[in-house]
C-alpha cells in the first residue's frame, strides 16, 4: 500500500464487538517507525478499545475481534497468549491515564521498575540497578539515586507519569501506546510531559500511538491524526492537513474547542505601573473583600494547632449583574475553596462577602437563607451531585419547597418549566438520575440551581467532566440563560477553552492568591504577571504550525501553603496595566 518504508504497525479492517454491539468498525491505519499517530475522539468513540485490542487485553469471553493487526510482519490476533506476553512490554508498551493509581503504593519505585526490566531483559544485581538509574535519568527525574528508594506517595502526579513512561521504555519497545497520558495532569505538568515524550522519541526512535480527546495536544505532538466518532473513523491525514483543511464538521468543532486567545495581544503589551493597593470593589451582585480560608494543621494533645494551611489569602473580587468572572488556576490553587467559602461549605477565616450590597453574616441562619436564595452552585460531577435515589422532578422541587418559594401545583409547574428551559422533556420528571447521560445530568443540576431564581450561580468546574461537543452545548445553555434571566456566573475552571468562551473577566489564582485580574482579552491575550505567562505558555497550541512558538516553561518552584501559627502575609502591592487590568507585583 504505502510506497515509503514498511510500517511498524498496520491495522487492517479491525472490528471489535461486545455481544451484538460493534464498538470499533472497519478501522485501518498504519504507524511508521519513529512517528506519532494521534487517535482523537470522545468517550465511547472506541479509541481506548482499539488500544486494548492491539494489546490483546480485551476479555476473550465477551469480546470479538476481527481483522488484522500486523506488527513486524506477524498478525497479533493469531499469536498465542504466551507469544503475546513477549510482545506486551517487549515490543509494545502502554501508558495509562491515571498515574496516581497505576503504581503499587507499598513497593519502592525502583523495585517496581526493576521488576519490569528483570522480567523482560533478564538483568540482575549491579547491572539491574544501573539500568534502573539509567531510565530515571532518561525521563529526567532529578536526584535519581535517592528517589529510586522512595515510595509512590512521595512522587507528584507528573513525576509518577515520568515513572510510568520509564516503565514503558524499560525494554526499548518499538511502539508505545499512550492512553490519555496527560488528561489527569495540570496544564503546566502536561506541557512538561509532552515535551519529554517528544525528546524521548527523538532520542530512542520509538513510535507512539497517542490517544486523546484534546486537539491542542494533537497539534503539539502528532505526525498523523485519526478522528473517531461512534466507533468509526471519520477523518484521517497528516496533522497539518487535518488542522488546515478539516473535511468533517465534527473535526472542525474539535479544533474550534482549542483555546485560541492565548497570547493573541502579546504585541500590544503595556508596561504596568505601580498602584499600591487595589481600588475598592464596586458593589455588584457579589463582592468579596480580603477573603481568607485557613485550615488548622496538627493539633497536639490539647488541640492547639501547630500551623495552618493558607488555602485562600487576601482575595478580593466583584461580579456585576449579568457578568461572568472566570477563576482559573492549577489544582491546589484555592479556586474551588473560594466558591465553597462563599457558600459556607468551608469556614471563612476572615473577610467580607456581600451579596446585593448586603454583608453576609455567616452566623445568622436568616442571612444564610438569603445568601442561598441569591447564590446557587453547580458542581463538577453531575452524577455525584444528584441523590441517586431521588427522581429528578423531586430534586428540582425540593429547594423551592424548603425555602417556601412555591408549593403544590405551582412548584410542579415551575419544575416542568425549568426542565423544558434547560432542554429536557418534562415528561421525564419521574426518572432517576442514572437514566440520564452526563450532559443531561448537568442540565438537571442547572435546572435545580435555577429553581430558586438566584442572581448568581457559582459553577465549580461545571463543564470539565464533559465531552467536547456536550461541553459546548452546556456552555451555550448557560450563556442563553444568562441573557434571558440576567444571571451572573462565577465560573471556576482549569479549562482555558471553556473560560475563553463564557467569561467576561478572568482572575488567575496562584497559591491561594489572585495574581492577575482583568478583562478576558487583557489577561489571556497579554498577561502581565509572570505566573499567568507561565500558565498560559503551557496551554497547547491550536495549530501544528505554531509548535515551539510559546516561550519555554520556566521552572516554577512549588511552595507550601503551610504557615506557622499566627503568620500574617504581608500586604500585597498591585500594578495596573490597562483599564480594569490589575496584577500583583511579583516579589
Amino acid at each position, binding site marked *: 500500500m504505502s510506497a515509503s518504508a514498511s510500517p511498524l504497525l498496520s491495522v487492517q479492517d479491525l472490528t471489535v464487538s461486545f455481544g451484538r454491539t460493534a464498538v470499533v468498525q472497519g478501522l485501518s491505519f498504519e504507524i511508521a517507525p519513529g512517528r506519532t499517530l494521534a487517535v482523537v475522539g470522545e468517550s465511547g468513540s472506541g479509541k481506548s478499545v482499539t488500544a486494548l485490542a492491539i494489546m490483546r487485553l480485551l476479555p476473550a469471553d465477551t469480546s470479538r475481534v476481527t481483522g488484522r493487526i500486523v506488527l513486524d510482519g506477524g498478525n497479533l490476533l493469531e499469536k498465542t497468549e504466551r507469544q503475546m506476553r513477549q510482545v506486551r512490554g517487549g515490543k509494545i508498551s502502554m501508558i495509562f491515564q491515571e498515574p496516581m493509581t497505576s503504581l503499587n503504593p507499598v513497593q519502592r519505585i525502583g523495585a517496581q521498575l526493576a521488576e519490569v526490566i528483570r522480567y523482560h531483559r533478564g538483568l540482575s544485581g549491579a547491572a539491574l540497578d544501573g539500568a534502573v538509574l539509567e531510565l530515571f535519568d532518561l525521563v529526567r527525574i532529578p536526584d535519581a539515586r535517592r528517589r529510586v528508594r522512595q515510595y509512590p506517595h512521595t512522587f507528584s502526579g507528573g513525576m509518577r507519569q515520568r515513572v510510568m513512561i520509564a516503565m514503558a521504555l524499560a525494554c526499548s519497545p518499538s511502539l508505545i501506546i499512550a492512553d490519555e497520558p496527560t488528561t489527569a495532569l495540570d496544564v503546566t505538568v502536561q506541557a512538561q510531559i509532552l515535551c519529554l515524550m517528544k525528546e524521548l522519541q527523538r532520542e530512542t526512535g520509538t513510535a507512539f500511538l497517542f490517544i486523546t480527546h484534546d486537539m491542542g495536544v494533537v497539534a503539539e505532538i502528532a505526525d498523523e491524526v485519526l478522528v473517531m466518532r461512534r466507533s468509526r473513523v471519520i477523518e484521517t491525514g497528516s496533522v497539518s492537513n487535518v488542522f488546515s483543511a478539516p473535511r468533517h464538521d465534527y473535526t472542525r468543532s474539535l479544533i474550534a474547542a482549542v483555546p485560541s486567545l492565548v497570547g493573541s495581544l502579546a504585541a500590544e503589551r503595556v508596561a504596568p505601573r505601580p498602584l499600591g493597593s487595589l481600588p475598592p470593589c464596586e458593589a455588584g451582585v457579589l463582592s468579596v473583600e480580603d477573603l481568607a480560608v485557613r485550615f488548622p494543621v496538627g493539633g497536639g494533645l490539647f488541640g492547639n494547632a501547630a500551623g495552618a494551611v493558607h488555602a485562600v489569602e487576601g482575595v478580593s473580587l466583584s461580579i456585576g449583574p449579568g457578568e461572568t468572572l472566570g477563576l482559573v488556576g492549577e489544582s491546589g490553587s484555592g479556586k474551588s475553596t473560594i466558591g465553597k467559602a462563599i457558600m459556607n461549605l468551608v469556614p471563612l477565616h476572615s473577610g467580607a462577602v456581600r451579596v446585593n450590597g448586603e454583608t453576609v453574616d455567616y452566623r445568622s441562619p436568616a442571612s444564610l437563607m438569603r445568601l442561598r436564595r441569591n447564590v*446557587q452552585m453547580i458542581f463538577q460531577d453531575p452524577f455525584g451531585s444528584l441523590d441517586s435515589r431521588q427522581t429528578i422532578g423531586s430534586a428540582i422541587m425540593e429547594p423551592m419547597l424548603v425555602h417556601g418559594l412555591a408549593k403544590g401545583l405551582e412548584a410542579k409547574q415551575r419544575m416542568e418549566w425549568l426542565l423544558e428551559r434547560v432542554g429536557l422533556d418534562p415528561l421525564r420528571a419521574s426518572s432517576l438520575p*442514572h437514566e440520564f447521560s452526563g450532559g*443531561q445530568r448537568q442540565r438537571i443540576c442547572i435546572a435545580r440551581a435555577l429553581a430558586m431564581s438566584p442572581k448568581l450561580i457559582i459553577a465549580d468546574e461545571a463543564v470539565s467532566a464533559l465531552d467536547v461537543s456536550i461541553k459546548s452545548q452546556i456552555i451555550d445553555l448557560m450563556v442563553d440563560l444568562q441573557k434571558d434571566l440576567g444571571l451572573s456566573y462565577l465560573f471556576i475552571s482549569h479549562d482555558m477553552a471553556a473560560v475563553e468562551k463564557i467569561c467576561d473577566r478572568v482572575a488567575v489564582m496562584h497559591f491561594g492568591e489572585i495574581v492577575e485580574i482583568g478583562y478576558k482579552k487583557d489577561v489571556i491575550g497579554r498577561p502581565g504577571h509572570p505566573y499567568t505567562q507561565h500558565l498560559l505558555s503551557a496551554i497547547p497550541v491550536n495549530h501544528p504550525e505554531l509548535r515551539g512558538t510559546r516561550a519555554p516553561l520556566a521552572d516554577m518552584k512549588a511552595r507550601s501553603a503551610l504557615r506557622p501559627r499566627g503568620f500574617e502575609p504581608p500586604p500585597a502591592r498591585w500594578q495596573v496595566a490597562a483599564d480594569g487590568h490589575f496584577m500583583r507585583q511579583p516579589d
Partner: protein
Amino acid sequence: MTGVPLPEDRQAEVPAISAGKSRTFLARLNLSTWIGLAVVLLLVLAAVFAPLLAPYDPTRQNILNQLAQPGAEYLLGADQFGRDVLSRLLYGARYSLTIGILSILLAMVAGSLAGMVAGHLGGKTDIVLMQFMDVVLAFPSLILGLALVAMMGATMTNILIAIAFTALPAFARVARAAVMAQRDREYVQACRAMGFSGPRILFRHILPAILPEVLVMASLWMATAVRTEASLAFIGLGLAPPNPTWGGMVREGFDNILNSFHLAIFPSLAILLLVLAFNLIGDGLRDAIDPRLKTAS
C-alpha cells in the same frame, strides 16, 4: 414528546443502566434466601396459630405420661412432667421470634440513630457516643445480657431490652461509618449549598443510602439475638417456668438426656432452624444489594 428540540447528547448517549441493575431487587434474591424467608414465615405462622395447632395445653402436666417417647399420642414425646413437647415448641416459638425480631428492630432504630447523629455532627457528640458504644462492645454479649437480666429481672420486656442493648454498638458503628462515607459526597454538599437543614439531609438523603447496609446487619443480628435468648434461658435467666421457651426446654431436657434424648434434641433443632433461616436471609440480602461481595463461583 413535546415540541422542545432534543439536545444532541440525548440521542447520542445510551442511558447508563447496566444489565445487573435493571433486574428487580426480588429477582436478585437467590434460592437459599427464599428458603430462609419461607422457614421464618412458617415459624411465624406456627407461633401465631399455636392455640389452634397445638394438640395439648403446653403447661398442663400429666404424671401418667411422664417421659413418653415420640409416637401417635405425643408426636414429639412428652417431658418429665408429662407435658406435650410439640405444643411447648409451638408456644415457645412465640417468645423466640418476638424477642429475636423486636429486640433487633429496637437496636436497629436506636443504634442507627445514635450512629447517624454521631457521624453527622462529629466532634464532641461523636466522641462521647462512640466511646460509650465501645464500652458496651467490650463486654461479650452473653455476659452483658446476663448482667442486665440479672439486674432488672427476667421478664420478657427486660430480656428484650437487654438483648437490644448488646446489639446497639454494632448498628451505631455501621451507621456512623456509612454516614461519614456519604457526608463528603458531592450530593450532600449540593444539599447544603441549597440551604437544606441538617435533619433533612440526614433523613431524606443520607438515610435511604445507608438503609440497605443496616437491614442486612439486622437480619444477621436476629440470628444472634435468638441464640442469646436461648442461651440466657438455658442458664436459667429466661422466662420463669412453666412458660415454654426453647432454651428452657433444652435445659430441662438435659436432665434426662441419657434415656429421653428427644427432650433436648427437638428444641435444639428448632433453635438451629431459626438461626440458620435468619443467616440465610442476611447473606442473601447482602449479595442482592452488593453483588461484588459474592464469593467467586
